[in-house]
């Protein structure tokens, strides 16, 4: 048994998942490698269909990898899953609670399944239900629970056995601000108590707020792994202002691209998307420009970074090359090319 303290919580080498037959199936995860240190909150950030859930399901033994190796707390998952399963908790994408049972019965069932000693079970269930604001509803069947309540219950069920490693797959989408904050606070608290956390998300802001390090994944490949602080520069470069001008909106492209602070202008239908690090300074310039040229502003909005753009930025491809015609940007740095791990 390996218990040395410098063992990584998770080590992944060349992990690959192909759904369907070799050659014709979907390559959902494509030879990724990374390590999650003990005690950190590790973010796994990527757009829809990037391969996040697939990766998490492989890490939690639910899905067999097509290739590659997973080592958790020093145990090779392919050979020694049992001790790993005892140490990990899992919150899947959909809250998988038993709607026919009460909140209390759901928790007691999980506690029994993880062999929490009889004496501790009730105590632990009470503690969790109180901490999650579900104590008053403990005897109500879960079918009457709201989405946020189910989510909280499913997190409580995942930590009833005090796992040292917790996997969370998109814990907050679809929840109101208050539930979201409660869940984020909880993640911080668990982490402060020493739990290593693997957090899958497609929200840049969530990764910024919670994670010590973030891996950015798209199309099954990792583009970068770094601290949110350092990734932020890449995020900032791909903020944008979108403007539609009339009449003759098309002809303003070159002039708009030449405005101070604009890195790239991309035509999106009848709009121009102007990439910039500083949307708030660009807005008045766009308004002035329209006034000077007697153009009417049909719509004007600022957009935060989209993950797709962040990914392109980091991999050094020009924003907009994939789906839209592009105007050459000026002086854009190639960005952080796949630092640790990540084969491209």
């Amino acid at each position, binding site marked *: 048994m390996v218990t040395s303290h410098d063992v990584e919580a998770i080590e992944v080498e060349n992990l690959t998942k192909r*759904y369907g037959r070799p050659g014709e199936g979907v390559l959902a995860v494509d030879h990724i490698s990374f390590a999650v240190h003990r005690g950190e909150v590790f973010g796994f950030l990527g757009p829809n269909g990037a391969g996040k859930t697939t990766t998490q399901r492989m890490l939690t033994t639910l899905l067999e990898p097509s290739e590659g190796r997973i080592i958790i707390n020093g145990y090779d998952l392919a050979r020694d899953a049992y001790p790993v399963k005892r140490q990990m908790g899992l919150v899947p994408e*959909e809250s998988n609670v038993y709607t026919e049972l009460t909140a209390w019965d759901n928790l007691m069932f999980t506690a029994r399944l993880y062999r929490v000693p009889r004496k501790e079970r009730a105590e632990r269930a009470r503690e969790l239900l109180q901490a999650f604001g579900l104590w008053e509803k403990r005897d109500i069947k879960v079918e009457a629970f709201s989405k946020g309540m189910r989510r909280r219950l499913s997190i409580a069920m995942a930590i009833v056995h005090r796992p040292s490693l917790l996997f969370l797959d998109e814990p907050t989408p679809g929840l109101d601000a208050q539930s979201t904050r409660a869940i984020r606070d909880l993640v911080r608290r668990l982490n402060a108590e020493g739990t290593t956390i693997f957090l899958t998300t497609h929200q840049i802001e969530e990764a910024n707020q919670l994670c010590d390090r973030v891996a950015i994944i798209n199309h099954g490949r990792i583009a970068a792994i770094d601290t949110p602080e350092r990734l932020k520069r890449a995020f900032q470069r791909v903020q944008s202002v979108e403007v539609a001008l009339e009449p003759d909106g098309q002809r303003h492209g070159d002039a708009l691209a030449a405005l101070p602070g604009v890195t790239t202008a991309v035509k999106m239908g009848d709009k121009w998307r102007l990439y910039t690090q500083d949307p708030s300074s660009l807005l008045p310039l766009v308004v002035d420009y329209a006034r000077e040229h007697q153009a009417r502003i049909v719509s004007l909005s600022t957009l935060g970074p989209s993950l797709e753009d962040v990914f392109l930025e980091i991999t050094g491809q020009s924003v907009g090359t994939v789906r839209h015609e592009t105007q050459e940007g000026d002086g854009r740095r190639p960005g952080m090319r796949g630092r640790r791990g990540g084969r491209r």
Partner: protein
Amino acid sequence: MTDGWQERVIDEIAQAWTVTVKDIKVYYLRPGMIMFGVLMPFFLFFSFSIRRHIAATQGEARLLALTLLFTAAAAGPFIIPLERRLGTYDRLMAAPMSLLTLLLGKMAVGALFAIAVSLVALLAGVLVFGVAVAHPWLLAVGILLGACCFAALGLVFGSIPTRSPGDVQMPSVLLRWGLLFISGVFVPLRDMAPLARAVAYLSPLTYAQDLMDHAVAGTGMLSPHLDVAALLLFGILFLSPSIWLHRRSRQLGY
């Protein structure tokens, strides 16, 4: 963390039982279970036995065999695909227990369901029709073994990689109907042509029916020892396709 293998075994037994109790609470009263597990065997029994003059004991043995098959095998194809769809099956697959433990827990769900329903059928026979059971102990063993064997058969269908109970429920019902007609339930084994009898020997239901004949009416044709051994063997055999299908699901992503 547990140390010795004895503790591990105790853990696994407790976990299997935990799964069984949870499923009983969640699924026993579901319409799908009642319809395929309780109504169908009684419906079949009455549609094939009415207007034919058979002894009460003979009828009771037939009803028990039918109930064991249909009720025990109803649970697997209903519960597992449903849990896969709801994501709750992931919770079980990720838990620190062996696949065999999970399968045994699920098998007990179907088996206990069948035992409960056949006890009702037995009670009705004894109280209403005055059936006198020839060998009560043999009957107890037969009900237990038959229930486990057919629950394991249900698990094979439940293990097929799918998230929709409809995909596996019909095939599993069809198979049970098929077994019904080749297994000496409606045509006694001794009245069968040699070829038909050879086919009947391939069906676990044949041995369950024969064992019920011995136990209730004292009239079976094969040796009760053979019946017991065959049911045991079929039950164990049925577990291996389930294990294989679960591995397959883990590759396919169900």
